[in-house]
């Protein structure tokens, strides 16, 4: 949810105000979408007529996430899994050996050359 929240926030503000169908820029709409995010992802704050592709896509995601049943468990599973993978395995047990031990590509190449050039003494 947090990731989605920031994703929406970046989308709505990083690109500046959204274009209305008539071409005018509407800060109000941006603020409403922002309210959608801040009001616990409640798509109902969007008013009739704001039927742009973006709004429909947004409300599809918002309502979809809100009405999830099994999906909640699955998202929890995915997040736990990703946390274990990246925050535990990657961080503590799976360093990129060459990137950790050497600063430049030339040094890495040299390390591999030394290792592979030792032939069947490996």
């Amino acid at each position, binding site marked *: 949810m947090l990731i989605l929240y920031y994703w929406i926030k970046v989308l709505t503000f990083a690109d500046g105000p959204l274009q209305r169908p008539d071409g005018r820029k509407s800060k109000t709409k941006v603020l409403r979408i922002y309210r959608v995010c801040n009001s616990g992802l409640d798509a109902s704050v969007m008013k009739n007529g704001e039927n742009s592709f973006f709004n429909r896509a947004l409300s599809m995601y918002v309502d979809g996430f809100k009405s999830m049943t099994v999906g909640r468990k699955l998202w929890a599973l995915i997040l736990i*899994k990703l946390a274990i993978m990246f925050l535990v395995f990657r961080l503590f047990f799976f360093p990129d050996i060459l990137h950790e031990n050497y600063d430049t590509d030339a040094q890495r190449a040299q390390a*591999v050359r030394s290792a592979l050039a030792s*032939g069947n003494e490996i």
Partner: protein
Amino acid sequence: MDELLSTVDWSRAQFALTAIVHWLFVPLSIGLSLIVGIMETIYLKTGNERWKRMTKFWMLLFGINFACGVATGIILEFEFGTNWSNYSWFVGDIFGAPLAIEGILAFFLESTFIAVMFFGWNRVSRGFHLTATWLTAAGVCLSAYWILVANAWMQYPVGMEFDPAQMRNIMKSFTEVALSPVAVNKFFHTVLSGWVLGAVFVVGVSSWFLLKKSNVAFAKDSMKIASWVGLAGIVLTIWTGDGSAVQVAKVQPMKLAAMEGLYDGSRGQSLVAFGLLNPDKQRTDSKPAILGEISIPKGLSILANHDADSFVPGINDLINGIAIDEKGDTVNTVSYAERIARGRKAQQALREYDLAMQTGDKTGMAAAAEAIKADFKYFGYGYLESPDEAVPPVALTFYAFRIMVMGGGYLLAFFVMMLLLSYRKPGTLENRWVAFLGLLTIPVVWIVSEAGWVTAEMGRQPWTIEGLLPTRAAVSDISAGSVQLTFWMFVVVFVGLLVAEVGIMTREIAKASKKDILTGE
């Protein structure tokens, strides 16, 4: 040396464990996405709500599997960087490019349209929703394609040139890598086997409903669709498997010899239908390789070369330098003793290149680079102590191949029977034994599918990259203990993940059995 071998063994075991677990999820996603797409297409054509409900039920199981399987493959990339650092560097962008394309293109395609699949009912038009479903299915296949391109390159390295300065293989032809005949064949064989696995899963779960005498109409309709998909899948898998055998005979003849337990080949070579490997057999003795053998006359010649009288080389023939060329003719090729000598020559040239580089001797570097290039094809053989080290583990390859082939035969018969019953005697599907058979075929298809990968990967040992880099040279300079520790951590996590998937899935199936899926009541 012992520590190194131990590191190699544990790293291989860890990679195999991760790949096997990853492969539990992937083929089900491939197969279920197709079946869901077909059901939704029928819904769009007929407008009948029962097809929509069927689609939604199988889509839910697809979603559970997708969520449980997502990112399990990432661990393989961690392992490359930590356990296989020499390999990771040596393959350069050849391996990186397909994986990057997979990540960017296919993953985003899947993750975008999967949201429409699940959240888009009643929000987007039926046509758009169906398009999203098919694009998700296409995304799953596209992911598989790029991974298989990377895998195929390891089995049949093409489209690259080795640069001793960077110590990497540089991609010279993206087309050669991406459209390598091995990659294309592997893709179809793998994806089609995914159809079969998905189909068995649907038939198996439907059989469970029939055992419980719940959602009978739903189960029978699902079985019909799945059985057609399964039959088409298994026929095409056998067909592409045949293509694969011809390819293996040409580009990895040692793998084919190991698959057959064949030490000394002949013209009109028979194929072992049944038999046990003789555990006392040594490569150079005259004891029979197979005990209690029942064979199909000329079967292996037909399988490998599509020519009943052609020569199929055995392990000893290959070691002695007898093989078949691309046209299927018997030729004298480079013996393994000579390959080892030439590999060592290339490695000596690499040492000279290194020395010249240290002293800034550009002429020396150029001369050494030429010398490496001349024998680079056999570079990896230089790491072997003797030709025997180039022989894959025969027993594992032999039995895995037989499990795959016999399992494939069983699955063909299974789908034919299911279709016949579905159309001729649909009432029989509710028979307890038939339903049990459907349910028990679920683990069978997974074993068959994994056996296919075991054949492909064990059969290419000792190589990580065929002829260029054996596992012992590819591995990092790390302690076996650290790999052992993470191996057991993975075992715990993977078991947990499987328990979670099976738990969530069985709970949803059990929940569905208490209501009428077709009416939603």
